[in-house]
């Protein structure tokens, strides 16, 4: 007589694995091919970002903030800059705001491109990776020309930017966004109607509206479940209320919807970028801040800033005690809660669906562990 327990198998998807999301460890309990329970173990990349803030001045902490979500470095830098600028009552000029929006939207585009390539790689298709990395390389060269760095930009300062953009650079962006829609269309042509992809992702990993709110899911994962919430429209910051763009949304909340939603978001990014470039070419102005950055002393108080990052809402809480170093800095990122909902999505699903679900949630581990 066989023991019921002996048909179950415990598998450890260890911290090192060829999936590109980072060092996440999953301990799965399998009954044949069905996942009975999943326990995510995180913390393999906990670098102590929040404690570091208490040992550094504001200007010293600013470059390290890019590393929290390295695919969206501008968003983290903006969240921290916004919190400090609100506490210290520093004004930001309109040209600065337009350039911040422009760089953030290009960063969102490059993050979604990388997500698309690695999602396809997890599902087994290797060619979209090379196509999207080729396009991402162009965006990175543009950023390298502007800031000197490909990934950790360190471009925003408190009250402005490090230096202005030139019209030559803006012309290059105009050329770039002219050919992007055709390329995104190419990706859609080979992926969206592919019967293997559709069978693997339709009705897989459905996040219901109630579950999404209970587990505090934000960003594209929430919009794919049918709740149309985007902080760029609901609580506009910077100059988003002057720009014309739509918020795509979907209904079912499965992996296929999350994919189509991010493709639609890429088109919206291009719209915003072209409007910003048009405004910037016509309106010169001052961007370099007049605040003495190394000696910045922020008055006492606390503030929470919210940014719509590519993976969800990124909130930064800064508490200041009147000196030149923060008293406490806390980061809330979107992928943290996507990892938390993962066991619920994986219950009683098949083992081969693990990557179809996990890849579509767009999780980045440094954001989870900070």
């Amino acid at each position, binding site marked *: 007589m066989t023991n019921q327990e002996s048909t179950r198998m415990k598998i450890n998807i260890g911290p090192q694995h060829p999936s590109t999301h980072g060092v996440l460890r999953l301990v799965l309990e399998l009954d044949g091919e069905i996942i009975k329970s999943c326990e995510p173990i995180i913390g393999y990349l906990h670098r102590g970002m929040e*404690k570091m803030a208490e040992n550094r001045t504001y200007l010293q902490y600013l470059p390290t903030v890019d590393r929290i979500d390295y695919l969206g470095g501008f968003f983290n830098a903006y969240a921290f800059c916004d919190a400090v600028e609100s506490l210290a009552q520093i004004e930001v000029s309109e040209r600065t705001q337009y350039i911040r929006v422009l760089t953030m939207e290009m960063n969102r585009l490059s993050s979604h491109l990388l997500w698309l390539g690695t999602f396809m790689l997890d599902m087994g298709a290797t060619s979209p990776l090379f196509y999207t990395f080729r396009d991402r390389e162009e965006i990175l060269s543009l950023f390298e020309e502007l800031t000197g760095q490909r990934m950790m930009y360190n471009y925003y300062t408190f009250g402005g930017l490090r230096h202005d953009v030139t019209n030559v650079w803006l012309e290059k962006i105009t050329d770039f966004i002219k050919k992007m829609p055709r390329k995104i269309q190419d990706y859609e042509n080979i992926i969206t109607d592919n019967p293997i992809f559709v069978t693997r992702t339709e009705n897989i990993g459905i996040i219901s509206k109630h579950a999404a709110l209970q587990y505090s899911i934000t960003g594209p994962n929430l919009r794919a479940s049918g709740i149309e919430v985007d902080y760029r429209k*609901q609580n506009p910051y910077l100059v988003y209320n002057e720009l014309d763009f739509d918020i795509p949304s979907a209904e079912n909340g499965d992996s296929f919807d999350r994919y189509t939603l991010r493709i639609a978001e890429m088109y919206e990014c291009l719209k915003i970028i072209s409007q910003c470039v048009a405004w910037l070419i016509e309106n010169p102005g001052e961007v370099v801040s007049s605040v003495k950055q190394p000696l910045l002393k922020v008055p006492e108080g606390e503030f929470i*800033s919210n940014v719509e990052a590519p993976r969800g809402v990124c909130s930064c809480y800064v508490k200041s005690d009147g000196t030149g170093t923060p008293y406490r800095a806390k980061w809330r990122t979107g992928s943290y809660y996507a990892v938390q909902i993962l066991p619920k999505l994986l219950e009683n699903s098949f083992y081969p669906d693990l990557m179809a679900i996990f890849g579509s949630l767009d999780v980045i581990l440094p954001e989870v562990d900070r």
Partner: protein
Amino acid sequence: MNFDIFENIGEAANTFSKIQIDSNELVEALSYLKNNAEFSLDRLNTIIAVDLNDKFELIYDLHSVETGKVARISVLVDRNSPHISSVVNVFKSANFDECEIYDMFGIVFDKNPDLKRLLMPSSWIGYPLRKDYVQSDERLAWNGGDND
């Protein structure tokens, strides 16, 4: 509890003010704010823990999905015996937040189904984000120093 203190809730998300309540009224207040149709603060954005030197402060950041309003509820916890009730029954996303705060500060959340260390190794000693955490690394093997 007296729900009148919540009358003026509902600013936009880019301002900051917090409402102080007692630690034993916490679950009641959060359920009220979540279920009340006027506020409908149905998403717990995050739980923030701060180490004020003689006590801990927990700030619950609640967002509303329909209206975009926010509310920040602040609770003080005693430092010598840091216990507070868990809100996992109201918002499921609080589980990871509370485990992380236990890991970093040592605050024990009663009635949390699975309180364990999340970010540090499970047998770590000490609570890193407290202000009196000693970062001298002689205890740890791979931080060099005079060991080799």
